[in-house]
């Protein structure tokens, strides 16, 4: 039995705010980790876990569940915060992020037994291939599950992503949805300066994907994009979600230096009070 999803934008906004606060708190406690991409992906994850995916936090291994594959492993803080918010494990555990013996590894590790985690990941460019394999397996057995994979935009510079993109279209995987967190920034700066990705939409179209764009911080826009996926019966879908690194904390929004940084405890207090407004 799947858990009940949230209808209505205010409910989703409230969840996203709670998730962002958890991210800031867990990072301040761990003293290291990735804040920027966690904040840019928060609304995407909120939409997936509270409005789109069929899943059951009380029964994480339910065979009928939709699968979420986090390819961009370094935004683990927001993934963990979302799982905890959905009820996969107690929220207090978020304070164990990156600590010795914790189930919340710096990059997700399945061997530590965290409920709701489908794949250990952290080396960029591998998750889409895994999601393709899962989607193929489900197709072979006529299972109705859907597979959602999240990649960062900088991650698309990995050649293996495009091998997977070719394979998904070749095998007509209409049960597969890739979401790209298009925040435009990576560690060295602007993606277009480091290694240009544009024209990104045309690239995915040329690879045979049903290509959608949306505002990655507007729940109406996100939901509407997800609703359009899988409509074309023979193609995989990609949603290019336009986002802002550090979204929700004005002083760090769009600042690539926050890619891999954790706030100090004082900064965290500031950020949390801003998120509470």
């Amino acid at each position, binding site marked *: 039995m799947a858990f009940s999803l949230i209808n209505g934008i205010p409910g989703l906004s409230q969840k996203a705010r709670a998730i962002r606060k958890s991210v800031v708190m867990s990072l301040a406690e761990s003293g290291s980790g990735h804040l920027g991409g966690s904040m840019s992906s928060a609304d995407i994850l909120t939409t997936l876990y509270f409005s789109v995916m069929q899943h059951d936090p009380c029964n994480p291994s339910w065979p009928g569940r939709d699968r979420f594959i986090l390819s961009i492993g370094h935004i683990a803080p927001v993934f963990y915060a979302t799982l905890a918010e959905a009820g996969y494990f107690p929220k207090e555990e978020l304070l164990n992020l990156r600590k010795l013996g914790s189930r919340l590894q710096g990059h997700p590790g399945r061997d530590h037994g965290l409920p709701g985690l489908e794949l250990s990941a952290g080396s960029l460019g591998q998750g889409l291939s895994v999601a393709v*394999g899962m989607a193929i397996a489900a197709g072979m057995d006529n299972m109705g599950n859907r597979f959602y994979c999240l990649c960062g935009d900088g991650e698309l510079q990995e050649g293996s992503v495009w091998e997977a993109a070719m394979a998904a279209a070749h095998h007509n995987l209409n049960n597969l949805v890739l979401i790209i967190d298009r925040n435009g920034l990576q560690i060295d700066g602007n993606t277009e300066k480091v290694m240009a990705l544009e024209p990104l939409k045309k690239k995915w179209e040329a690879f045979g994907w049903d290509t959608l764009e949306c505002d990655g911080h507007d729940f109406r826009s996100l939901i509407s994009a997800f609703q359009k996926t899988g409509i074309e019966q023979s193609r995989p879908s990609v949603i290019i979600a336009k986002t802002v690194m550090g979204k929700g904390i004005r002083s760090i929004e769009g600042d690539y230096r926050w890619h891999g940084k954790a706030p100090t405890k004082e900064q965290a207090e500031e950020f949390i009070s801003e998120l509470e407004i």
Partner: protein
Amino acid sequence: MSVMQFKNRGNKPTKAGFGEGLLEAGKANKKVVAIGADITASVGVDLFSSAFPGRFISLGIAEQNCMGVSAGLALMGKIPVFATYGVFSALRTTDQIRVSLCYNNLHVIIGGAHAGVSVGPDGATHQALEDIAVMRVMPNMTVLSPCDATQTRLAVIAAIEQCKGPVYLRFGREAMPDFTSPDMGFEAGKAQLFHEGSDVAIIATGHMTWEAMQAAIELQKEGINARVINIHTIKPLDESAVITAARECGAIVTAEEHQVAGGLGSAVSEVVSGNYPVPIEFIGMKDSFGESGPPLELMKKFGLTSENILKSCFAALQRKI
């Protein structure tokens, strides 16, 4: 056990054994699926793909993706077998193997074809000589290296039905002596004694096991009783067989169609030096690439023959205290 009990029933490539074993395992277990990276027939997977087209997934020349897709299939309960040349399956995809397969501890069988210089005319780029070294350092990985076509058939079935987690199975291209009996069975992790002896132990893997047996016959003529041990499982290594050989024979020669650095020779010396140090001589590639040429000529050129093993046995005996 004596080498006299083994007869070459005719030369046969180990890749043929791989293909036959995969087909057999596929018939017995519907969860088995195979992945193709364009060279399906060349690595023996065509038998399976013709018999079970619905369980064969063609992914083209994109090995990194093939490995990730294998991980995804395994996560959904399939038992994927992905075979291509070992230089690609073990080395081009090493990071995918490390993170997507080994860190997730997924039951995927990786076939490493074209192992060793006996690949022949294709030359250095296609001769896998570093695959054992890289695969055996991966946590959770099992590494298999059967000695002939019959044993390779049993090894695939064991990899699928007996092993847990990721398995790397290496095999060759050239037709080589097929001499083991299917009745010998295949127990992963268990060394096989092919010839009794206590003067010196030859510990061999893959095609080199046959060469080791020929060396033992020659040594017998000289009044030297060599023990021949076939290592079809390099990881987990049968440590007790290796330690017993060190204790009872007092000198060891390792033989492999692979770099000595990191391969069977290294694995054996790690165990011997830590438990019962004795002199060891190493037959294998000595930090060099292979090259083009007829397979057997290349084996000679790079010192991978029974004659070389024989000489190393004498060298080891001389160092024996």
